[in-house]
């Protein structure tokens, strides 16, 4: 590959990285796993003057739960770290379902969840998962840290609210209210393909009643779609075939797919509904068992 000429820096701390970002005045790019940035540079869609490689910054590779159940994913936690974590399914079922469906094994060993969120590709799987989970991103800039809800984070295809001198340091999933269940389904034409349609569903329930619900949609709009409206229909109710059906229909309506070589608009809508139904129907017995 023959990218345009660039400078390279490998800071040892978050502070140093933020300072370098500030000095570059918007002409630098953070390099995490490089699985989105490097292909863009190869095609010269991206020609940053400087790469700020954060891989040498210690203490960012974590993914773990706080005592209260808040879940944190550090900026250098790789897709594969999540995929291989056997405890993830019980704590973060939607994430656990998505992790093995991201890209292919080679990409998963380097790519990061936070990098995926920052890349803000409407076909990125993690953004829908995070929006279904009500997650947020913590960014550090010259004036300290701020937390941005995933739903507000993305502003368009490959666009987000990060300032040029901010580094995303972690993604955060709030503690569940009750028990958490969920799933992720993705229609891909082959392994490593981006989603034709991806659906992330997360529900939390107490007793048999849904206390919180979220749905995120991948690949069916100009950016990740949070189908919150559809999901909230379930709150306060017991899950049943009827409301599953209604949620599925509403989620399909909220989606904004376009016809392309991956499928027609009508088909993609149909797939959103089918996947919402399939995930929720699979969760149905779990919610009933608790009672």
């Amino acid at each position: 590959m023959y990218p345009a000429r660039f400078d390279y820096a490998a800071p040892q701390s978050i502070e140093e990285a933020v300072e370098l970002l500030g000095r570059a005045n918007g002409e630098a790019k953070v390099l995490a796993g490089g699985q989105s940035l490097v292909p863009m540079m190869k095609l010269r869609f991206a020609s940053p003057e400087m790469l700020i490689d954060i891989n040498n910054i210690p203490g960012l590779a974590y993914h773990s739960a706080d005592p209260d159940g808040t879940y944190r994913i550090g900026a250098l936690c790789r897709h594969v770290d999540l995929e291989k974590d056997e405890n993830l399914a019980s704590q973060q079922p939607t994430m656990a379902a998505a992790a093995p469906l991201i890209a292919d094994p080679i990409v998963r060993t380097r790519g990061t969840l936070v990098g995926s969120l920052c890349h803000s590709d409407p076909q990125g799987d993690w953004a829908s998962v995070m929006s279904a989970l009500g997650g947020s991103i913590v960014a550090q800039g010259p004036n300290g840290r701020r937390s941005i809800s995933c739903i507000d984070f993305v502003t368009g295809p490959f666009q987000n609210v990060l300032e040029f001198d901010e580094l995303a340091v972690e993604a955060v999933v709030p503690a569940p209210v009750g028990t958490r269940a969920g799933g992720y389904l993705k229609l891909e034409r082959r392994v490593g393909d981006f989603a034709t349609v991806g659906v992330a569903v997360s529900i939390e329930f107490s007793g048999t009643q849904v206390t919180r619900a979220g749905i995120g949609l991948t690949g069916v709009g100009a950016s990740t779609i949070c189908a919150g409206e559809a999901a909230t229909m379930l709150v306060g109710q017991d899950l049943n075939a009827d409301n599953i059906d209604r949620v599925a229909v509403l989620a399909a309506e909220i989606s904004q797919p376009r016809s392309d070589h991956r499928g027609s608009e009508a088909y993609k809508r149909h797939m959103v509904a089918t996947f919402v139904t399939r995930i929720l129907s699979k969760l149905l017995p779990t919610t009933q068992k608790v009672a």
Partner: protein
Amino acid sequence: MTIDEVKIGGLGARRSRVEDNRFIRGMGNYVDDITLPGMLHMEILRSPLAHARIKSIDTSAAMAIPGVQLVLTGELLASRNLAWMPTLSYDTQAVLATDKVRFQGQEVACVVADDPYIAKDACEAIVVDYEALPVIVNPTQAMADGAPIIRDDKENQHDNVVFDWEVGDKDGTDRAFAAADVVSELELHYPRSHPSPIETCGSIADFDRATSKLTVYMTTQAPHIIRAAVAMVAELPEHMIRIVSPDLGGGFGNKVPIYPGYVVSILASILLERPVKWIEDKTGNLISTGFGRDIYLRGQMALRNDGKILAVRMHTDSDHGAFFSDAQPSKFKIGLMHSAFACYDIPVAHLTARGVYTNKAPGGVAYRCSFRITEAMFFQERMVQVAADDLGIDQAEIRRLNFVQDDDFPHRTPFGFLTDSGQYAKCLDIGLEAIGYEDFLKQKEEARKNGRLLGIGISTMTEPLGAGNSREYDILGIKMFDSAELRVHMTGKAILRTGAKTQGQGHETTWAQIVAHELGIPADDVVVEEGDTDTAPFGMGTYASRSTPVAGAAVSMVSRKIRAKARKIAAHLLEVSEEDIEWELGRFYLRSSPESGVTIQECATAAYSNVPDGMEPGLENNAYYDPPNLTWPFGCYITTVEVDPLTGVWDVLNVVAVDDCGVRINPMIVEGQIMGGLAEAYAIANMQLITFDSEGNCVGSNYMDYLLPTAWETPGFELHEVVTPCPHHPIGAKGVGECATVGGPAAFVNAVLDALKGTGVRNIDMPLLPDRVYEALTEGHDVSGAPPTRTG
């Protein structure tokens, strides 16, 4: 005493591929691995537009970049009469565009610089002013009234037609149709795909000022054809041109044509008197080099109520892109399309073909297709399936009923080929048995009751492989024979060279096995070399599954010449006359006392140390082989699938392949070829697609859009074999490299359509993406034509 042929790596030995030793250890030697002193790097600027007039090209900013040595445009080439070059099918192709660009990705300018980064930077600094023109992306648009004429560079070209061609008996076919009980019809599109070899195209041109000799290291499947073409285009004397095709990272027909990059790198080296390397990137390879298919086929089949096929009519509209640059066996404009229906006993048929220009990359016959056989057999097997459904006849039964019988050979096909051998029904029976046909039909019925959709698809075909024979086949007038040269050294070790060019087929292994079979020299004692025109005998290269049928036969023949001489030497050594000795593998012996004999190695030694009076010393020879006919392998592919009625996603349950490619030299290599072919058949049926939007933008210019299946989704294959030796090949072998790619796709498509039986759907065009299957299933109509392209 007798040598075990398999032990010495002869015929039938599952010998490990000797070339893999270096390939799997990263020690291959590809064009891009070669570095010459003082070498410069070339990069191509490609057109972003599919059809546009070039108003101006400003290269001043590019020239000003430090490290840039030369910027070449069409204008510069035109001044040397090199802006256009001949193609391998009597058309012309722009080397660098002068007047217009005619497809997205067309070569517009080249930069030669000290390193590839600088060359790429400089390409970006070239300013081209384009005036966009209306774009044509399919044959319908190409033939529409008032369509812009793409090839306005050609005198007498007043439309977008490349050729009109026909073959067969029109009147006879019409009569047969008039007498038919039933007429079945089918119309389909075989979409464009790209062979996408792992190694892209590239070259290093090295013009030596001291000797005036031009050496070109390049990715070519046919080095000798290239030498001839370079002699013609560059007007250099042929003996001062040396083409070297080193290790090739796959070819699949993609590396047969002559590409602008080769030509410009040669010119640049001559102008700069330094070596110039050009290595294409993946996108460049996908958007500008030889593709496969992209053809619309329609036809009718005349049938008797009992399933007997009476006649076939076919028409094809092929999309050749902006230049007719296929390598074509020149008598047949649409390649070997008329080999369709060769395995069936059909009295009469008629085919018309029209080729058109469009604003797309040129090509059409790459990708394991053997000159359009892929499309012919796909249409054939889809048509037979549709006919079976129309008549309500079992799909295996209709094939059996119409097969040419084992004792009917030689058999004249409906379009005039002569098939010579086969056991078609036996292959089919083995396939049906292996897949558990009857059981599966029951299972399918049961599953239906539970709303599950299972399907089974069959594809059976014989195809003509091994172009050619020189009566009928030539490229640019050069007859399609091939050659081998064998030198046995004095210790009995040998070097073999042929005019073919391996690119993954394993010639280095297989050819040595043929020598072992003919001479009893262990295969490990024979080194095989191909690809250097200064050392290899003249040959037409490797494509169209022709190496074993033609070059492989030449290897046998040259070995036999060596054996004939060795026999004379043996008689001399044994002090008897030639008539008194017999041959067994590796050894001549006295008929009267078999324990007295001499080995082939002893004969070799004597050839250099103790030849009989009057005999020339040495033990080497060459052979040029002109096959009397094509070879006719047979393939039977059966696939079972399950379709998810809610998503249209289909999963392959089982794939069975029964191949009869005659005698198998190295069964392991044959199986590898078949598995690779089946993987590609699955890919093409399922996902692999190059398509274009209405502006002529290529959708499929990278591996995110152009999907190659991985080991993950590719199903497993169960392989079976039948051996019907080729009656005219010296060791009874037939071509096999393309069989499964040719015959496989219809098995997958037929299976999915079988699962949809009862919905009224007759056709879904490939690739059978889930949305297309779902639409057909839920709407109950065909989903045909080029797939929808990206909007906005």
